[in-house]
């Protein structure tokens, strides 16, 4: 007997998509993405001092990057944080799991279904914004913009996988909320810890801000533990940027797009395996 059943996975994924796409919060998020892209483009155009109202794709992406690093995790966590704990609490999971379906299929169905909702809202939000820019300013860096959308989806999937893991671990919806908040703030807490270590090793804030400063290797390596940083680094690589937020960064070779993508894939896979272990052991 096969380990997974594609038909069951598809059924669950379809159900999750239909159920969540009608969630008013998700719809609101989609509209926010769209408005944000247009606004970012407008700001980028204004900043560059050009004659165009809107900025090009590269400038827009740089502007939008810091915001999407925050917003995408929020929407992913919103979709996933209680997908198992909440369903267990409401009682729908106890019906579902008495059907001829394995828990692995339920889990994968949820990942694909919620992942589709996430990617759908990213594509609609940022994609429509991209089309508007392409129509008004031009489609320069169009491929890189598509890469931006893809990488943003990967960021979303990392957080989705993490939040599904939280929901498989937590017994109740309330504790899942705490877990979701925790993974959301992880990036900031981690950033602060890293910066603290940086200052403790004798590097001053002025040095850190100096263009061309040679950052220690471990600082670059540390981004493998922060999904948000990996995302930003990947997008910059995709656009061939070395400058963003006023920093000039000469990234070492091991921070290539390929390695970063691989690392992000691990970030999706590991929480998922943990989620399966928690889910399989769980009493519904």
């Amino acid at each position: 007997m096969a380990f997974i059943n594609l038909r069951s996975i598809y059924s669950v994924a379809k159900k999750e998509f239909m159920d969540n796409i009608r969630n008013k919060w998700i719809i609101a998020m989609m509209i926010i993405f769209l408005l944000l892209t247009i606004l970012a483009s407008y700001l980028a155009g204004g900043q560059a001092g050009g004659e165009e109202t809107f900025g090009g794709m590269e400038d827009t992406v740089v502007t939008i990057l810091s915001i999407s690093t925050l917003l995408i995790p929020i929407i992913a966590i919103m979709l996933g944080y209680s997908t198992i704990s909440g369903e267990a609490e409401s009682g729908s999971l106890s019906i579902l799991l008495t059907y001829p379906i394995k828990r692995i299929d339920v889990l994968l169905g949820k990942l694909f279904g919620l992942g589709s909702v996430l990617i759908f809202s990213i594509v609609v939000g940022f994609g429509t914004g991209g089309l508007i820019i392409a129509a008004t300013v031009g489609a320069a860096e169009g491929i890189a913009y598509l890469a931006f959308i893809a990488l943003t989806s990967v960021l979303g999937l990392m957080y989705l996988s993490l939040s599904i893991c939280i929901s498989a671990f937590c017994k109740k919806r309330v504790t899942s909320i705490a877990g979701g908040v925790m993974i959301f703030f992880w990036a900031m807490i981690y950033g602060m810890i890293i910066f603290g270590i940086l200052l403790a090793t004798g590097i001053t804030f002025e040095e850190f801000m100096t263009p061309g400063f040679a950052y220690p290797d471990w600082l670059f390596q540390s981004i493998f533990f922060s999904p948000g940083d990996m995302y930003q680094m990947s997008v910059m690589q995709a656009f061939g940027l070395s400058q963003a937020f006023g920093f000039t960064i000469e990234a070492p070779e091991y921070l290539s797009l390929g390695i970063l993508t691989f690392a992000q894939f691990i970030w999706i896979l590991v929480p998922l395996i943990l989620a399966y272990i928690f889910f399989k052991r769980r009493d519904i």
Partner: protein
Amino acid sequence: MITKTFACPDCKTRITGQGNPGEKVQIVCPNCGKKGVAVFPSVKTEEKAYVNIIEIINLTKHFGKVRANDGVNFSVRKGEIFGFLGPNGAGKTTAIKLMMGLTHPTSGEVRIGGNKVQIDTIDIRKYIGYLPEQIGFYDNLTPVQTLNFFCELKGVDKSIVMNLLKDVGLEDTIDRKVGTFSKGMKQLLGIAQAMIGNPAIYVLDEPMGGLDARWVKIVREKIMMLNKAGATIVFSSHILSEVQNVCHRVSVINKGKIIAENTIDNLNQYLRIIPRLEINIPGLNGKVPEGIVNIQGVEMAEAKGDLLLVTCDSSARPIVLNFIEKKGMTVSNFKTIEPSLEDAFVKLISKQEGVT
């Protein structure tokens, strides 16, 4: 309870009596005074060969220090309606969730059709319809989308969905989102969901909980109808009147332990809950015949119009009837009144708690 007419071997006077299946009652012919023993026939289904379709073997489930199930044993026979009884918090839902393979037992096992139930055993699940105690669906889906989804999982053609919704009286709600449903409506959708694929076994956890009287009646009729069509049904309840007239056999759980498993009749016999003798005496006029309570074995006697109600041992019944005859009164009819399950339940629980 069986009604049977006996003929006196001497004078051929016909006497109608009622009693439990298999019960022997001494009767006295009101005409010639001849004593005899009337035997009520035992119910034949009791003797039929049966197959245990669900076996619960030494099932134990601990939540920390709480022993929700503590060595539970019982079995459900193929084709019967089985009542799983117990007060709130007795461990009914825990046992049912273990039965459905939703939770992991601390020890012991459940076998359905000879196969061990575990998390992820999927073959058995095709033949089981389940209604949980707490019912939840997907808020943003319509009832049709919800049932379509469950049909897909069970590999059943979706064309049955409208009929299922009609069956439970939800045909007017097909455009609404399930998130807007009341508790009772969700319960009905839950029942519709359980019927997908005509399962051979139904496991219903408090199927009448949260429903008003009209729907309780409909659900009860539904259960009997499904059983007549050949399905084995297990349902739990803490309300005994729901179970009494529906179940073939019952099992009573309290504090995680099975304290009785039997037919309702045998349960009463085991507990020695004394049935009452109901005697029709024309012209009694609400007066208890003097001296009747002094007969050995008689606990209590009261009169309601022409009806005399005597609580007594079965051995005292002929003496009571004889006594009445001697008083010059005529017995036109008599029957024994079975004690209710409610009595059995209260007595069982107080018995268990008296021991522990």
